């Protein structure tokens, strides 16, 4: 009889982005305290208000305790053993790409993110972030003509301090949670997007985050503001080299949508997940929140989470404006010893607010994949509606899938629907597809794509197929 490849075998394949770029970096001493925070702020030549913001956050953070409610079981993180700022030497503000270190350009080339004029993705502007700093932002001028600001947050602090001051920390307050407070104190860089009134952003915006240093924490800050009747679609991608130590990544993303504005935020997260025994990998503890401030505003989160040893995040929507809409479409795939605890919070505050949640969790290997979500309807949210669908797919018989839906409604007329399912890729399905000439790996990835179809339909066109093949890649070597 045939030698059967087991599901677990098809799931183990190498991580193609795990290389390390050898360049000189400038790092500050390990640890966190007031003088470190002052040093970061000083290095970045920040205005007074931002230093105050950081120090306030630091003091809050020092009083807070690391949360344990998610039962993630990771070893204790020594926050004094992390370097909070690392930058390639002499990188601060290059006016043109020619000045950017060739090694770094090559790194992004290898990752499939060419930054050179000629090779750029034709309809996508990219902000490339390498360790703690933004290396380059493409198509800046073209966007500038429309009044769209797309730059690193450090640059925005220098050039548009009023805008940053007005919106920073207004969606995720500095004391929101332990990791958000830490980020607020030490954030290094990230992207800033501002779409003025009545403007449809002419191209997809994309940030690409690359962690290179092994002992450096990653604390990006992203802020996107869409003024009245504007719209934007933004995508972030992430990779990191393979280290056998764990790296902490605690980003904060804030979105603000004013009247009739819409923001679509998509993530393809592929941080290094650790090896098959769970050694190494990124701790991805991220706070993402969008505020539908305006009437008829809309915020839509799409995420494809495939990397990190532990993912812990809940991209959420505060639905304040009347008739505002929040959406969350998620695919989370875990393999080997990965853990993902992810979901969303939809907070209905305004009248006739609507939210949709579609979550697809795929667990393979010995991984643990949980959906955790909150739908909250306040007394004032007359006519609020929510629809949630949470499906889990198990591959092999060692993986775990959990669903924790929390529903709190103080509005008796609210309509809340929740559907959940758990299924398994069976040997029968696999044999059926194989007997039609479709190999093991292709069969599994076909079934996984089928399972995720509802979510892929919501990704920007350019990235839907990328996400599809990424899942295929992640599942290679896993079948039984």
């Amino acid at each position, binding site marked *: *009889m045939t030698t059967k490849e087991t599901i677990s075998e098809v799931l183990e394949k190498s991580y193609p982005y795990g290389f390390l770029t050898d360049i000189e970096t400038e790092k500050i001493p390990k640890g966190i305290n007031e003088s470190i925070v002052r040093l970061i702020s000083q290095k970045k030549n920040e205005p007074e208000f931002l230093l105050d913001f950081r120090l306030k956050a630091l003091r809050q953070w020092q009083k807070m305790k690391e949360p344990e409610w998610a039962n993630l079981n990771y070893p204790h993180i020594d926050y004094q053993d992390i370097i909070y700022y690392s930058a390639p030497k002499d990188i601060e503000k290059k006016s043109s790409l020619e000045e950017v270190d060739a090694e770094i350009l090559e790194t992004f080339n290898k990752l499939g993110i060419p930054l050179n004029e000629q090779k750029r993705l034709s309809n996508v502007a990219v902000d490339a972030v390498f360790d703690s700093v933004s290396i380059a932002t493409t198509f800046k001028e073209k966007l500038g003509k429309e009044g769209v600001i797309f730059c690193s947050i450090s640059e925005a602090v220098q050039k548009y301090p009023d805008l940053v001051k007005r919106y920073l920390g207004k969606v995720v307050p500095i004391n929101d949670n332990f990791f958000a407070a830490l980020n607020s104190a030490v954030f290094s860089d990230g992207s800033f997007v501002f779409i003025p009134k009545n403007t449809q952003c002419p191209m997809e915006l994309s940030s690409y985050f690359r962690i290179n240093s092994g002992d450096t924490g990653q604390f990006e800050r992203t802020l996107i503001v869409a003024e009245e009747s504007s719209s934007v679609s933004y995508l972030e991608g992430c990779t990191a080299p393979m280290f056998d130590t764990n790296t902490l990544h605690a980003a904060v993303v804030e979105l603000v949508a004013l009247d009739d504005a819409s923001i679509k935020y998509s993530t393809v997260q592929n941080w290094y997940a650790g090896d098959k025994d769970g050694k190494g990998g990124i701790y991805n503890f991220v706070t993402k929140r969008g505020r539908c401030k305006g009437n008829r505003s809309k915020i839509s989160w799409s995420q494809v989470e495939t990397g990190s040893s532990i993912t812990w995040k809940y991209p959420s929507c505060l639905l304040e404006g009347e008739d505002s809409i929040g959406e969350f479409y998620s695919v989370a795939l875990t393999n080997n010893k990965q853990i993902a605890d992810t979901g969303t919070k939809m907070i209905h505050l305004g009248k006739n607010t609507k939210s949709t949640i579609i979550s697809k969790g795929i667990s393979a290997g010995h991984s643990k994949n949980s959906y955790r979500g909150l739908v909250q309807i306040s007394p004032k949210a007359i006519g609020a509606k929510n629809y949630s669908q949470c499906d889990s797919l198990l591959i092999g018989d060692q993986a775990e899938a959990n669903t924790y839906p929390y529903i709190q409604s103080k509005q008796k007329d609210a309509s809340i629907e929740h559907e959940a399912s758990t299924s398994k890729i*069976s*040997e*029968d399905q696999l044999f*059926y*597809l194989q007997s039609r000439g479709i*190999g093991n790996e292709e069969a599994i990835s076909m079934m996984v794509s*089928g399972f995720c179809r509802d979510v892929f339909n919501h990704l920007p066109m350019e990235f839907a197929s990328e996400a599809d093949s990424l899942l295929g890649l992640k599942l290679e070597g896993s079948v039984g």
Partner: protein
Amino acid sequence: MTSKKIILEIKNLYASIENKLILNGVNLTVNEGEIHAIMGRNGSGKSTLSKIIAGDPIYTINKGEIYYENQNIEDLEPEERSNKGIFLGFQYPVEIPGVKNIDFLRVAVNSRRKDLNQSELDTFEFEEWVEDKLDIVKMNKSFLDRAVNEGFSGGEKKRNEILQMALLQPNLSILDETDSGLDIDALRIVASGINRLHSEKKATILITHYQRLLNEIKPDFVHIMENGKIIKTGGKELAIELEESGYEAIQNESKIS
């Protein structure tokens, strides 16, 4: 007389699942152009035989060989067997949620075409090509946009199997109880599809409980299987005999002889 090409040759095959012996020394030779019917009671091993030929990894071969077009296929994966032209029509076709039938069929067909050194068909070419084949099983185009077998009725699932057979153009088709659960109209559609797809260069094995399928498709040989082996082989008349006197009589008779 020109000698016919041997498509399938099974020699003294013993096979088991979880240490339970199911096949007990099966011998079977199928030449091109022939239609064989294998009949037998539930648990006699006929479905197991068909899955083993297709390469289902849950079974273990303990002894004996299977040759397909003179090649020992024991070490081939199920997908390799399919690509070489072995087709198994499932008794219980499996549902694949979310995967569109047409996408599944295209991947399957292109996989087979690669083996035949034919160019792969793109989405548009395939769509045209598949529409021609739908008529064989009287299927509506809308079947193509539904998820594979999901929510299909029993008859629809079986017709989808025959559609796959039409698309993959196998040299050896093994149809495992394709007639079960079909009403008489659906049975005729499926049977006429099988008849249309059979030719002088191909071989077909029908696994069935009932004689009624054999009224629609004329077998050259009928084999009776019992306790994991073929206990009697004959022509069409054997199926009729079986229908009249039952398995018991044939079993006793074979013990005596």
